[in-house]
């Protein structure tokens, strides 16, 4: 069975090579962050942080404004995700469970809104925000981030709401619940995994957003982490250890969230949004 040995070998070998290729940049970020500078600036790379140190993390954490930026990022991300979840919950319930005039048009509108090229609209947004004297503020950032994730949230949640059997809701209503009570007591608990998956994408979008904060908030007290990371390298020159430590700190929450929620998130996205 020569062919089958080969046939079993090559997929595994390819998988290992691919694994290394995909993981290496992530590994290298953490490895560099933990290496002393002497092991980073070497003619031959040191592949493993044998002399692990947290001095680079120390430097990153004690950089000016670091904690302000962390707080800003957390505030903007969490509030925009929550706002869009609440708004989307109402909308998706209507879209999934009710028949009314204009429903089709609305779904199409949200599908189009999902593709809005925000990166290209930043000039207009800048002018609007400036005209309303809201530059260097977290409020417009939060509002626009919420809007960026809203369409996808609505469309994904619509899928989750439709997946809850109508009979459950109806029997609750027969038992004397109002529609609202039926929703809170019956549908909402079943939606929990969907809500988590949906919020993951919102979280990633808002946590990562770069162009808008780049143009709107010049005051460092009102900036967020992505902007800081992208400038950290310029500010610290060739201090790759500190830059990688900063990137690691920035990436860690997302990596952790993602690993826990990935499976649900994937099926959520494919069921609800990517219709195929």
């Amino acid at each position: 069975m020569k062919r089958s040995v080969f046939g079993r070998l090559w997929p595994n070998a390819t998988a290992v090579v691919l694994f290394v290729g995909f993981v290496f940049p992530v590994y290298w970020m953490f490895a560099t962050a933990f290496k002393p500078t002497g092991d980073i600036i070497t003619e031959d790379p040191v592949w493993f942080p044998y002399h692990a140190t947290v001095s680079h993390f120390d430097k990153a954490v004690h950089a000016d404004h670091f904690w302000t930026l962390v707080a800003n990022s957390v505030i903007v991300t969490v509030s925009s995700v929550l706002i869009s979840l609440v708004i989307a919950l109402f909308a998706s319930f209507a879209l999934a469970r009710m028949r009314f005039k204009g429903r089709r048009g609305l779904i199409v509108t949200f599908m189009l809104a999902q593709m809005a090229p925000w990166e290209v609209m930043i000039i207009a947004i800048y002018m609007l925000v400036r005209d309303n004297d809201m530059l260097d503020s977290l409020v417009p950032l939060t509002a626009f981030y919420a809007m960026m994730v809203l369409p996808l949230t609505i469309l994904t949640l619509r899928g989750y709401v439709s997946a809850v059997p109508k009979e459950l809701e109806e029997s609750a209503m027969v038992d004397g619940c109002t529609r609202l009570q039926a929703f809170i007591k019956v549908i909402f608990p079943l939606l929990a995994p969907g809500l988590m998956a949906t919020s993951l994408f919102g979280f990633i979008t808002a946590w990562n957003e770069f162009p808008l904060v780049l143009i709107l908030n010049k005051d460092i007290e009102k900036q967020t982490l992505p902007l800081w990371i992208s400038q950290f390298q310029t500010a610290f020159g060739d201090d790759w250890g500190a830059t990688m430590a900063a990137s690691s700190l920035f990436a860690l929450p997302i990596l952790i969230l993602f690993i826990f929620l990935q499976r649900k998130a994937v099926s959520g996205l494919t069921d609800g949004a990517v219709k195929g």
Partner: protein
Amino acid sequence: MSVQTEGTDTAGEPAVRKSGPPAPPRGEARTAKTPAGRRAAAAPYLLLLPALAATVVLLGWPLVKNGILSFQNLNPRQLIQHLTEWNGVDNYKEILSGSDFWSVVGRSVVFTAVNVVLIMIGGTLIGLLLARLGKKMRLLLMVGLVLAWAMPVIAATTVYQWLFAQRFGVVNWVLDKLGWHSMADYNWFSSQFSTFFVVIVLIVWQSVPFVAINLYAATTTIPKELYEAAALDGAGAWKSFTSVTLPFLRPFLYATTFLEVIWVFKSFAQIFALNEGGPDHLTETLPIYAYVEGVGNQHFGVGAAISFLTILVLLAITSYYLRMVLKQEEDEL
């Protein structure tokens, strides 16, 4: 939510009333006068109101504003003094008659095409590989894919700058060791081609996992009977792939390609944070070009016009699929 008592609203058409059983509530003291039907008719609109308002204010308004700005002469002087100077279609004339814009359009289209082709082929092959692997190896590869996928764009960008750094970068070291000695101190961000190379590696590395994992998930939903039937008909591995797997995955592949086209076309952070569209503006794609012209050079009116044209280009590129989706939605709803 609970406040839906626009009592005198006469627009409630019975035809659009929710078809479910009205189920008169017993415990609640509801005024019998309020027609339940009218409430039900208004309910969906009230539920959708916040989402619609947000869309109109935060998306519609900037779009309209963008259109208005593109017909204005808006430079630092006008900006600071809050002047509104209309200049008709001058901005568009200036952009469309120059050669810059068209070369950026061409570059954006090629950039998007190269990325999407690589992402779709790579993602599909890896997805099919996932389906073939044993449990342990599949989990291993999945972990690698998920890590790459989850890396925040800006963090990934700084890591790639470090990987491809001129001095002490791993990539140059490896190329040197492999015998390509001229790469030992190569500056990747010194030429258009090599900068694009790094950007493309970065984007493909980040985008392939989405395609691969979803494609793998889609293959698991293919009924086994189809393969059995194909085998009974004497189909080999290749034949059963083209006659069972591929047709089954086709809608998924269409949808994903479409999404990737949009995502890649719009990519901003990767290109901007890596090299700000340099060297010498040679890696500017449309979104970067609009930013550099509009904000960097403070020609806000011109920038807005470029933005508008960019949206048109994006619509043109995606129109085929868009039409398909809209049609499908209409049939379904």
